[in-house]
């Protein structure tokens, strides 16, 4: 799957990190780092993390892999 975090919007609340620790990490106190193309096994965790974000900064792909051509 694919995600992108709008890090202008992200305020570092880090609610997402414990919900998908395989994919989202805090570097220092405030800087979020993440795996933009995590394995699909993490999808449920990532969706929960995205939903938990108070500023809705995590964008998740809206297409399944086959449609996202090229």
């Amino acid at each position, binding site marked *: 799957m694919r*995600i*992108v975090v709008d890090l202008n919007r992200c*305020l570092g609340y880090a609610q997402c990190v414990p919900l998908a620790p395989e994919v989202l990490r805090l570097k220092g106190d405030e800087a979020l780092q993440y795996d933009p193309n995590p394995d699909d096994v993490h999808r449920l965790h990532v969706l929960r993390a995205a939903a938990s974000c108070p500023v809705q900064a995590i964008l998740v792909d809206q*297409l399944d892999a086959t449609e996202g051509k090229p």
Partner: protein
Amino acid sequence: MSRSASRTPRTLGAFKRSGRIVIVGASLAGLRAAEALRAEGFTGHLTMIGDEPDEPYDRPPLSKQVLAGWVPASHTKLPRLRAIDAEWRLGVAAVGLDRAAKVVRLANGEEVGFDRLLIATGVRSRQWPNPAEAALDGVYTLRTSADAARLQKALAAGPKRVLIIGAGFIGSEVASVCRDLGLDVTVAERAASPLAGALGGVIGAIAAEIQREHGVDLRTGVGVSALEGDSGGHVRRARLSDGTTLEVDVVLASLGSIRNTEWLEGARLATGFWGVGCDAGCRAFDINGVVTDNIFVAGDIARSPHVLFEYQFMSMEHWDNAVLGAEIAAHNMVSDETQRRPHLLLPGFWSGQFGINIKSVGVPSFGDEILLTQGSYESRRFAAAYGRRGRIVGAVTFDYGKWLQFYGAQIAQSGPFPPLAAGFDRPSDARPVSADFPARGVPTGVPDVVLTGHDPNERSAEFRPPSR
């Protein structure tokens, strides 16, 4: 491709149904524009042209989690927010634009016809200026996914010393990764401090302290005069302008970027060192400053006037400038005059380095004064505001991002400087001081555009090739 002679649909409705849009540049701005066009109801033919072979990917992770070895360079593909049903022409660069015939020429000789065109070709990294030295093994730049893959491999191999030339955001972020990897790293910066161009010398001095605290061998006020290789063609030494020599086996030239305007040569658009001039609605200007009807610009290559900053033409290599500029350009491409919207972004950017989250809003370099407004420089947690003639024009935070909006709102209202005081963590003795921005450089030594004709009716502009 579809080089059918001009059959431009006569009405906006017909154009939205069956017109042809070509987007040149298949990165963040190009992709988001394509998605926005479909969201706006454009059902005609859409072509995406990109010189890189990869589908659109995100660049900010490349200098951070990718170089650190956590995320593979090929794993930053951008999520798709809707189907765009485009014809993709990837791995082939656009090399020319014929505005009269309304075709984009490709490097393989093909031509792609359009009714409306979006220019989103962005920037590329500036190479080390000596071509023979730049060609040495171990000398890198960082812009593309392929660049990141090569540099990550070189860092993972455990070089004895990495030299980073240029302490802007990319150079500083890579220095941070090097220290995380336990690598010895020297940063050579010609200015007096890192990040000085974007944030000024006051903040640059803090950034310099942070780099040194983390073990970076930071050398400011020096340039690199030569890179030397061994008999196998691998870089081994760097000579600095202060006469010292460094033994290095990886060199990153992080010297900023060059706008990809060459393919527009001869198209008589307002192209130059800072990109393609356009109005606030993303419509390109021609060489005379007359607005075009069917050519739009978005992303790093766009240069448009901003009301908040005295209508100066600004080009911004910011992530949200690409996203929001693309959305506005797409909207305006399929809207009539009364429905068009301006791209009036409140600029913002972020950078993660040495465990600190640096964020900014507004245009700090538009200001000339700075005031520490919250926290303290010593603690590395603070907010500071930039002012110009009694107005707040920018703000920066180090690990203080939750307060950035507080300043952004004041910048959007062209509020006073010193700004409205925050009711939290306020320093007792801070006063505005000079922000200490470096003097503006001279980008080109000779004019690229001259006026021709003596009669007012003949008066026009033309490009003159630089005499360099």
